[in-house]
């Protein structure tokens, strides 16, 4: 069984030049950076806030904050990692505003009962994503990831969806590397567990229909 192949990211060799030009007042260079990362920023924002309007606000606020603070970007990390840190902070602020009754923190190391011990070990159908229509699949994936605590969800999205390295994720979230690894393992296992009921094989060779989803 092989390892996960990382997403091929776009070359970033000219990124520093764009940042330098933007710092020197070239608004067009900053616009190129917006074009390069707006899709990622929107995706991260929507995963964290779980709300379309909030995600739109986060995209605007994060890029404006980045623009206003370009002078503070020293180039020690990638621009994208620096930007992600801003995006995560803005998105968490939105989430806290919307759910003031719940503490929302990346530091929380949520311990749910035996969440790391797999209970569901039935094998999945081959090509499980083809068992559902595109919109059913999107619904299943969205609802499943939304059930994770924000601290797990954010680590999973940055590492496994956006393809940041463990070190970059730690830097963007202000977490230690062991904390990122621990949250990532538990996020992956919890998602796997929850997806199993939609994707597992039936003993008679058919497919178990996922929970209450299609009722």
């Amino acid at each position, binding site marked *: 069984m092989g390892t996960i192949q990382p997403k091929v990211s776009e070359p970033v060799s000219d990124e520093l030049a764009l940042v330098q030009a933007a710092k020197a007042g070239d608004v067009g260079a900053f616009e190129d950076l917006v074009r390069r990362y707006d899709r990622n920023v929107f995706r991260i924002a929507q995963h964290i806030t779980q709300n379309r309007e909030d995600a739109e606000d986060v995209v605007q606020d994060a890029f404006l904050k980045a623009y206003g603070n370009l002078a503070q970007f020293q180039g020690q990390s990638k621009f994208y990692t620096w930007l992600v840190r801003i995006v995560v902070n803005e998105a968490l602020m939105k989430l806290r505003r919307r759910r003031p009754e719940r503490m929302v923190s990346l530091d929380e190391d949520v311990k749910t009962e035996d969440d790391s*011990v797999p209970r569901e*070990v039935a094998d999945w159908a081959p090509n499980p994503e083809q068992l559902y229509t595109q919109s059913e699949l999107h619904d299943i994936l969205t609802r499943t990831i939304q059930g994770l605590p924000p601290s797990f969800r954010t680590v999973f999205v940055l590492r496994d969806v956006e393809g940041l390295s463990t070190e970059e994720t730690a830097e963007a979230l202000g977490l230690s590397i062991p904390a990122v690894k621990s949250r990532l393992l538990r996020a992956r296992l919890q998602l796997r567990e929850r997806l199993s009921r939609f994707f597992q094989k039936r003993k008679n060779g058919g497919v178990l229909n996922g929970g209450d989803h299609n009722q």
Partner: protein
Amino acid sequence: MKCSDFLNELTNYLDGVLDARTKAELEDHLAWCHNCYVVCDTTKKTIEIYRDSELYELPEDLRTRLRTAIMSKCKQKKAEQSSS
């Protein structure tokens, strides 16, 4: 290697960052422990499905609208800075 040891190394294994010896021990465990094999295989599929899912794609019209709003505020900021 016990199943719990395997689980602790699962993320490192999937990310391909294990040393050769631990990787070999883990693959030896996978060869005979069907449960761990299934957990490993379905965790890998979970990651791949999410990575390829294109959840929350930014629609092109919204993308243009957001970029226009962002750039207009950036230009305004720049004008304020150069006039002060």
